[in-house]
């Protein structure tokens, strides 16, 4: 369960991008957050994903208030939330083979044992197989790389998945495939979802409910 209350965040204290944003997600609920380009919805997604410290407001994960972000956040909180970004090219280390990209969170949290096997299993659920897993990001298409980024977000079995415009760069079929992969993970694990985007039709079809930016934030 996630609660956001009066979150103000931005990159310059004088002109915050997000003002007074409040939103709550019930356990296992899928919420779509809709807003136009540049409204600050990605910044709010980063706050929820513990990647951006807000200037004011309260975030609670399963009732526990969050008081540290980024590397200061406790590991058990960081690993409870998975993130998928809009542009897979900017979110993938170009040196890593896809299988290592997917397994990286396991290694970073000291779970090397069986990491490659778990990565290969997950890769299959997002539709990546065999030889593709041995390639580096420049050798695969955007759609294939985003599939790997989704598998990486799921590898630690998060309780909440944050998808920030996950499918904005992708064609219709890859979009439907990635959404199906997220939904089958959620059905198996009971994880919640915060999907941020501007595509009303897509988020309406995908999520339990959608929230409009102007109802979530005050400016």
């Amino acid at each position, binding site marked *: 369960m996630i609660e956001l209350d009066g979150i103000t965040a931005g990159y310059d204290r004088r002109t915050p991008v997000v003002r007074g944003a409040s939103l709550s997600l019930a356990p296992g609920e899928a919420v779509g957050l809709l807003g*136009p*380009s*540049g409204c600050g919805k990605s910044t709010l997604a980063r706050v929820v994903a513990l990647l951006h410290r807000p200037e004011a407001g309260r975030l609670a994960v399963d009732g526990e208030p969050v008081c540290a972000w980024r590397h200061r956040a406790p590991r058990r909180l960081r690993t409870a939330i998975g993130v998928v970004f*809009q542009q897979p090219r900017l979110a993938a280390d170009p040196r890593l083979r896809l299988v290592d990209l997917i397994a990286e969170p396991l290694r970073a949290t000291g779970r090397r044992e069986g990491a490659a096997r778990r990565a290969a299993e997950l890769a299959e659920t997002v*539709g*990546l197989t065999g030889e*593709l897993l041995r390639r580096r990001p420049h050798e695969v*298409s*955007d*759609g*294939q790389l985003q599939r790997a980024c989704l598998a990486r977000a799921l590898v630690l079995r998060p309780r909440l998945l944050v998808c920030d415009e996950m499918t*904005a*760069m*992708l*064609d*219709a*079929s*890859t*979009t*439907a*495939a990635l*959404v*199906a992969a997220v939904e089958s993970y959620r059905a198996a694990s009971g994880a919640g979802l915060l999907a941020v985007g*501007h*595509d*009303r*039709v*897509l988020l*309406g*079809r*995908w999520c339990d409910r959608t929230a409009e930016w102007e109802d979530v934030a005050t400016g």
Partner: protein
Amino acid sequence: MTEPSATRPSTPAHPSADHPPLLEVRGLSVRFRMPGGRHVAAVSDAGFTLEAGQCLALVGESGCGKSVLASALLGLLPANAQTAGTARTAGTELLTADEAVLARTVRGRLVGLVPQSPAAHLTPVRTVGAQLAETARALTGLRGEAAARHAAGAAERAAYPADHLDRYPHELSGGLAQRAATALALVGDAPLLLADEPTTGLDRDLVEHTADELRRQVDRGRALLLITHDLAAAQRTADRVAVMYAGRIVEIAEADRFFGDPGPRHPYARGLLNALPERSFTPIPGLPPELGDLPAGCAFAPRCSKSDGRCASQRPVFAGGTACHHPEGAAP
């Protein structure tokens, strides 16, 4: 080279009347030589025509060869590319033209490019007005005040506000940057516009806005080749739709028929439409094949519910608007 043989006809070109089409592409193939003697067939035997005042949308998933086709038309392919076939516009053969011809008569003058990400296409340290005026000087030979006036005219046609000409690219919103890039493509009054994923990453309002602006250029008599994976943008802009899969054009249809009734004939095109969230939202199973390792038969056969032994062994020829052994419905 992937030689389009005489027994395997290319997509039929049918100029409507006595005047030749503005762009006529026949049997266009592009392949890349890779280390170790491998080849990647990025485009195989593509053929289509485009008339003035018409928009053809080229749709398909990322990595299917759409952008390579666009680069081939502008002579922007890397050195390890080999091309075959013909692509003719206004009497100029684009595929065999040398760099001097491309630079002096084709780019900007015959073919205007609306780029994929306008923010990256514009020079960050110069104002939009300065970039437009420079383009006008280079393309029209006008100087000083006359070049600035010509540039302002192009900005106006692209609906770029005149009071924003002294802005730098980072001061523009996504929509304005898109209009600035469109204005640059219009400066040389090129009769053919080539838009490569002009709506990627824009939100729905901006997509519709950009699509409508491109359509306005078409209604003024330009021809537009719109390369996109965004089916909504294609539906809003195009007269005809060409679907590309694994480097081949597998279907060309009138946009009304394609998006409406009776719908596409090729199973891949039907699958692509059915994957839309406003339709059944089901993905096409599997992944597209590697362009370096294409099967002998139909490239879509491994993912197709209708495939049989013939599909695996024999590549379907393009006939009746589609390249499929088991097309849906009757030829238009």
